[in-house]
């Protein structure tokens, strides 16, 4: 048993799974969910954009943006028994952001003004990483309910994988920024005596942007911000709470990483940035690592007497000789792959041990994990002491 990962699944209320794109983040989140549910936790896996076969495996294709308890047969096949429970949901980020506007708007008219603003759609996509913010917002909402012991968050596949961590702070900074205030209260700013050089310059640049962008563009922006300002208090308060939750004692972070030198380098740089945010790193899960399926060969022996014996066993004929040579060359390539992945993971292992975090190596399977049985095997591997060939 690996006590550290089990302790995490038992004690945290939120586990955030981060990682660069294409490293099996969603698969890792789902397998962690199964492992937690087997420990008796009522677990929710909140995923963003799962591969189709994985979504099918979890029955996610039929889910809306509310948590749904997975079917009885899925619980059985994944060996999850009461009191453990497994729910999943797919996050629709646009929908979540609309929901925020609806909640914080003070009047119906204000809400309509925002939702109908021509630039709202684009702004809500880009505003201060709102997609990422929406994910955090949903987690906060769900964490306030008693329905789940543990929420596992599969983070959005963004280029800058940690944007969402900064999203609440960025949203606050944006709403408080002087330029937004200037746009909101141009008359006030212009009327002040000794109004600052910056504002004069900014106003000039804004005028130029207006000229370049044609009529109405800045008007739309100002109107949007004005409408938004009414809600900004609610937003800011919420952003603060979300941030407290993220960096508090109830939340732990798990980094999912891919094998090989490039993926490991990306993961290491992500870890460094994660450290800087003050997030608590609980563990690193290294996916698709090439491992020996059994005892590694002794190449000195294998290439000498071993090759003769192998050729003999494969048929004492020229084809047997060729096959023995080919098999040994294949084993050498395999060994090189194993060594490459092991070497690449050294930095991550060191980083994890310095942070007091666990490191799990999940071997590369013959086929990619794309169904419930694969996830169940991965859940086994996650809590085992040593990674085994499946």
């Amino acid at each position: 048993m690996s006590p550290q990962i089990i302790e995490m699944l038992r004690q945290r209320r939120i586990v955030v799974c981060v990682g660069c794109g294409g490293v099996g983040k969603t698969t890792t989140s789902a397998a962690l969910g199964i492992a937690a549910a087997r420990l008796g936790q009522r677990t929710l896996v909140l995923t963003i954009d799962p591969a189709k076969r994985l979504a099918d495996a979890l029955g996610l294709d039929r889910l809306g943006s509310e948590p749904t308890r997975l079917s009885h047969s899925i619980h059985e096949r994944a060996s999850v028994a009461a009191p453990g429970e497994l729910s999943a949901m797919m996050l629709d980020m646009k929908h979540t952001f609309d929901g925020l506007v609806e909640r914080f708007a003070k009047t119906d008219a204000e809400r309509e003004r925002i939702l109908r603003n021509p630039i709202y759609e684009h702004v809500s996509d880009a505003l201060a990483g709102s997609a990422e913010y929406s994910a955090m917002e949903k987690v906060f909402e769900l964490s306030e309910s008693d329905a789940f012991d543990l929420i596992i968050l599969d983070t959005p596949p963004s280029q800058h994988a940690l944007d969402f961590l900064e999203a609440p702070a960025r949203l606050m900074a944006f709403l408080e920024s002087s330029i937004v205030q200037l746009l909101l209260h141009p008359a006030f700013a212009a009327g002040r005596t000794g109004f600052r050089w910056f504002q004069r310059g900014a106003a000039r640049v804004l005028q130029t942007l207006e000229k370049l962008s044609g009529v109405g563009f800045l008007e739309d922006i100002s109107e949007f911000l004005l409408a938004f300002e009414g809600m900004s208090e609610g937003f800011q308060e919420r952003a603060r709470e979300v941030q407290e939750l993220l960096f508090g004692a109830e939340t732990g972070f798990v980094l999912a990483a891919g094998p090989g030198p490039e993926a490991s380098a990306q993961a290491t740089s992500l870890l460094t940035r994660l450290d800087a945010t003050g997030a608590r790193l609980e563990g690193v899960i290294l996916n698709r690592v090439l491992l020996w399926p059994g005892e590694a060969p002794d190449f000195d022996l294998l290439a000498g007497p071993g090759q003769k014996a192998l050729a003999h066993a494969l048929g004492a004929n020229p084809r047997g000789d060729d096959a023995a040579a080919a098999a040994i060359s294949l084993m050498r390539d395999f060994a090189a792959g194993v060594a490459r992945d092991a070497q690449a993971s050294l930095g991550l292992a060191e980083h994890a041990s310095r942070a007091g975090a666990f490191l799990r190596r999940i071997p590369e399977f013959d086929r990619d994990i794309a169904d419930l049985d694969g996830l169940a095997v991965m859940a086994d591997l996650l809590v085992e002491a040593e990674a085994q060939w499946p």
Partner: protein
Amino acid sequence: MLSQSLPSLTRRRLVVVTGKGGTGKSSVTAALGLAAAREGRRVLLVETGRDEVLPRLLGSERAVGYAGRELQPGLTVMRMDPYEALAEYLTLQLGLRRLVRGVLGNKGFRQLLDASPGWRELITLGKIWHLEQQLGPGGGPLFDLIVVDAPATGHGLTLLDVPRVVVAAVRAGPLRVNAERVESMLRDPVATVLLPVALPEELPARETAELVSSVRHGIGIPVDRVIVNGMPAPPFPKGLEDLDGMLEALPPDALIPGLQDPAVLARCAHHVGERHALADEFLGSIGAWTGLPTVPLPLLSGGVHGIADVESLARVLVPKVGAAAT
């Protein structure tokens, strides 16, 4: 897909390389640039990410920055910086360099910019359009070929979609005119092509199919092939295609010095064979789902690290892209 001859990528004016993070977009960008430069074309590679990757791939340890630098004969690399491009553009429009720098350096203005949608994409494309229009000393174009290593987020689709959105949303004025110019550059079926890079794995294969479908139904930038990067070599040598079966048939008690458990042989062979079959399967799926020819590039076992690796990709990429595909 039927085997057919595809127009050479190196003869285009603008190639936008796109794909999910980790598919090897930058390696393909570097390989295409190198191949074209070796053909005597004057090439500009445009890096759009936060960190510079291309210089290292092309034999330079030093960053190139926004100003760019020639890293190989005929091959210049620059890093697109939307703030620099905006400063350049506003300075052109306002003529007040210090004012523009001061305002753009202001924290509050930065925050507004950081939160504002669309301008990065538009200014990036505007700069690329400007570079495409630039003339060299001889009166011909300064660059024959511009290759853009597009951002991974949303497959770089946001980047390409912005001019269309602006043309639809803005009624008149210089912004609209600029956006129209950029849009017609992107849609030019002779000069421009979008080059998606995929991996022979499920997620990248599906996302590439979605990418191609949304390009066809929306942005309208020409796309004529998909690069499938990281194709593993056939696992077993010629004449021994059944090597995994032969190894599986070994008696479990065979005494082979150096091997405690002879079954390891069969398991390794089976694993390598399965991974190869899976890659083949997804190579086929990418062709079927996109309806486009696929161009496989070999998996380099050590990764792509420097100019030697890029050269070996370039050798495969260019004869292949000129001739035929699967």
